[in-house]
């Protein structure tokens, strides 16, 4: 009833090209942002920050990165864990080598170095496609993890082989280590993710996004309208790796505070982020958030329901949680193979007419 677009006329192409052409969507988005930036900090404590909101946001950022590569440009990658590690370790090296450096610059540096590594591992995409490329990126995953384990320079020759975050500030606010307040940590991560999400939306709705999608949908036809496949794919690898690198740096420095290459950024992470992208919706910015939300929050929600409401033992609940989680993924993929983002799209279409059937 409330979701109607009748009476809203567009008088120029600019209005028609807007991200949210419908008034209600614009308001919805504003309310969401207000809740995220003002409402959520009011209830913020250690638990909400470290168990719910920060993991959700950093994984959403990683999913955004992978979605650019896999969802928009059609290049399947299983190297996400490795690229997250590059982001984490390069941020560590930057933080320890330049103690005065602002965290924002550290993130940019970590993103840039990951982008370079991504560019390098994107080179095989000139010759190989689809599953074969996935295998090549799998090689990147194992190589990078091995590298960070084997070369002590990356963890500053410490005895444990772990990297631990030093206290660092962003614009004068302490954002890393236990001493940083949850609210500051959360707002820092939220701001970074918001900026990156807007940037991603701007890229995919313009010329660059069309070039990526053209390569994804028909590379031969794309070449024929003057899009150079190799250059375009490398651009997707670079941008995607930048995003994943920043996510990796945030996972290490703000969320976990410590990391060890194989433990923290193993092949499981690669699959986890890939699941987020598939469940959320390939080729959708919103989908990256929905997917990350589903995969990160569902286990927590299930645990709370099973243990706290039904009084199950923690171990039994954990097993049941894994099973239920798997069933839910299958259920959603059967109901809507194009992901939660498409489901949301369908709901909106229906809402436009509701309560009338036609």
């Amino acid at each position, binding site marked *: 009833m409330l979701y109607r677009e009748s009476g809203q006329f567009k008088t120029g*192409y*600019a209005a028609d*090209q807007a991200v949210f052409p419908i008034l209600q969507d614009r308001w919805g988005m504003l309310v969401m942002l207000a809740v995220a930036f003002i409402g959520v900090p009011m209830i913020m404590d250690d638990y909400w920050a470290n168990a719910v909101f920060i993991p959700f946001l950093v994984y959403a950022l990683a999913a955004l990165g992978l979605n650019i590569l896999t969802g928009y440009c059609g290049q399947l990658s299983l190297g996400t864990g490795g690229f997250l590690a590059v982001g984490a370790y390069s941020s560590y090296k930057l933080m320890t080598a330049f103690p005065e450096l602002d965290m924002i610059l550290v993130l940019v540096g970590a993103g840039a170095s990951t982008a370079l590594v991504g560019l390098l591992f994107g080179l095989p995409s000139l010759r190989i496609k689809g599953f074969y490329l996935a295998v090549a990126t799998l090689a990147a995953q194992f190589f990078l993890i091995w590298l960070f384990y084997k070369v002590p320079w990356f963890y500053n020759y410490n005895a444990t082989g772990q990297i631990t975050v030093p206290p660092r500030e962003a614009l004068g606010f302490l954002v890393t280590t236990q001493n940083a307040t949850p609210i500051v940590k959360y707002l820092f991560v939220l701001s970074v993710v918001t900026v990156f999400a807007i*940037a991603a939306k*701007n*890229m995919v*709705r*313009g*010329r*660059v996004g*069309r*070039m990526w*999608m*053209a390569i*994804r*949908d*028909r590379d*031969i*036809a*794309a*070449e*024929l*309208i*003057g*899009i*150079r496949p190799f250059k375009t794919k490398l*651009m997707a690898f670079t*941008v995607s790796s930048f995003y994943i690198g920043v996510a990796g740096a945030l996972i290490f420095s703000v969320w976990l505070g410590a990391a060890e290459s194989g433990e923290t950024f193993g092949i499981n992470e690669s699959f986890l982020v890939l699941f987020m992208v598939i469940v959320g919706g390939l*080729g959708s910015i919103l989908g990256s958030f929905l997917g990350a939300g589903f995969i990160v929050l569902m286990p927590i929600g299930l645990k709370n329901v099973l243990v706290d409401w039904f009084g199950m033992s923690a171990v039994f609940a954990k097993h049941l949680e894994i099973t239920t989680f798997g069933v839910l993924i299958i259920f959603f993929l059967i109901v809507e193979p194009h992901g939660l983002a498409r489901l949301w799209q369908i709901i909106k279409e229906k809402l436009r007419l509701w309560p009338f059937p036609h």
Partner: protein
Amino acid sequence: MNVMTKSTVTEDGRTIGGVLMAVDNITLRFGGVTAIRGASFDIREGEIRAIIGPNGAGKTSMLNVINGFYHPQEGTITFKGEQRHDMRPHIAATQGIARTFQNVALFKGMSTLDNIMSGRALRMKRNIFWQILYNGPARKEELEHRKYVETIIDFLEIPHIRRTPVGKLPYGLQKRVELGRALAMEPDLLLLDEPMAGMNVEEKEDMSRFIIDINEEFGTTIALIEHDMGVVMDLSDRVVVLDHGDLIADGTPDQVQRNQGVIDAYLGVAHD
């Protein structure tokens, strides 16, 4: 071959200019199979040039050579007075050659508008950093090109499907969108590979009308492959006939229709 011919005026008042593309003695082999054997012809500015022949004659191979997908073993192609070397499809695109495919090659996940907008890729210059900012130069550029694309959408009479993902469109409309994407490149030479394959009479009439209008209004030179002889003879100024990789005839529709070799090729006289 490179001699520029004087421009002539057709019966319907269009001006046919000099030679736009000269194909000289092209031979294309795949291993032991010779797809094209020493074919030479030219395409003149402003004309509608048809390439016909039975299945397997080498017509699509010829277009692929012109596009730069295939690299002929022998022969040269001269485009706009310059001989080409090491052609690649994206270079052909920058030089002003656009193309549609026999079995539609659209970007299925994108809307009609985005498909046609993607045809402007070469003309849009703002780099990724401007794209990230979006507001400002990138948006201005986007809107300028949107305006041009809208004229194409109007011209092809498809405004109602602007926002529809092309994968959901019926075949005839998909062909039209693909033509729109090629037109968005503002090409000098437009290659159409069976633009009317699989269409009913009404759709064929529409498509013929678009082809004639493109040629007349935009002055675009068109080379097309088509099996519907009625359409070919009505539309084209000159016709090239290929058969088993050989060029067996080249001339006006009337000349070609009377050519004994062509009649034999189509009626299936045994090859010696």
